[in-house]
């Protein structure tokens, strides 16, 4: 069956089963491979994207459900918060192997858009669903603080 899927501001037509996980569709049909497969069962956060601005695990969201929302992936992440996070990530060298980082960034982006000055506790709560095998947690938290500070300086 054909589904219309709105991803990163573009409407795509995807001809596959509505039960297919969104992650499969993003990676295999739309070739948006920035979103990663970690556990495949909502345990690691590597596959995090936004649906109508809310972070969701794309491995556990069906195409049929995703088709009712506007999906944003790491490839389409834009705006001041995304720029501040990118700059902070580069400046601090946050990633190690990098596999988890697109998911980390999408969660961090949702956090910063909702809370421009998050505390350590806010960051820990928002990011606790994103695992990092390389244990870059301290740099992630510092990177979010850096990005928040940079956003504060701009405004």
């Amino acid at each position: 069956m054909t589904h219309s899927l709105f991803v990163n501001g573009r409407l795509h037509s995807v001809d596959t089963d509505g039960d297919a996980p969104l992650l499969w569709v993003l990676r295999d049909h739309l070739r948006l491979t920035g979103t990663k497969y970690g556990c495949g069962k909502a345990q690691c956060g590597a596959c995090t994207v936004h649906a109508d601005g809310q972070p969701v695990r794309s491995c556990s969201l069906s195409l049929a459900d995703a088709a009712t929302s506007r999906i944003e992936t790491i490839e389409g992440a834009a705006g001041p918060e995304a720029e501040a996070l990118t700059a902070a990530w580069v400046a601090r060298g946050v990633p190690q192997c990098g596999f988890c980082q697109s998911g980390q960034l999408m969660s961090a982006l949702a956090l910063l858009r909702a809370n421009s000055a998050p505390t350590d506790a806010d960051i820990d709560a928002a990011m606790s669903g994103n695992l990092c095998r390389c244990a870059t947690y301290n740099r992630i938290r510092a990177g979010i603080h850096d990005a928040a500070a940079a956003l504060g300086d701009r405004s």
Partner: protein
Amino acid sequence: MKLRRPRLSCLSIAMILFALIILIVAILLRPLTLPKPEALSAAFAPVVVAPLKPVSAFNAIVDPAARSVALFQEAGRVIRHPRCMNCHPRTDRPTQTDAMRPHMPAVARGPDGAGDPHLRCATCHNDANFTGRDVPGNPQWLLALIEQAWQGRSLGETCRQLFDPARSYITRAELLEHMANDALVGWAWHPGGDRPPAPGTQAQFGALIAAWRETDARWPA
């Protein structure tokens, strides 16, 4: 005198090869005793959950107070089931699985019971069980209020707090409605994946709670 090293003749090589072949064939053709299938120990036997007893099964209890307690004890098999208890934690973190271990990833109840504002339950739990990936879901997925924490409490204590004005947030009528008709409570009988459902059906459970209320809602000690 020059000693000549003994040499293996073709015949002896052939004999050795022949002996080796005989040995290999003997090893391959030796009678094997296959292990006999054994019955699994009782510890691994599948747990057979008895269905909920109907209300009529308690009619023989003449004393209304004793009947009321017995009805609640039967309903308590649902209340104390991991499908229900996991979302009635006494901390801010739900539990999961039949072992009722802390929820992974670490999540918090948040101000409305549906997760931290930045890590909502809906980040992973959708409107329905996502069977392909075995992630359970329901449109109302959220934790019970902390005042209705059931974990670590006896059935009697659970019952007392249901009606404690300081801790109860619903009337008796609403309680019956919640247990008998609430769709999220109903998920406990349709949990998807390999999660064992609560015993009986939601309708049977609701009938037990209704009969218990009609018998003056007595609770076990």
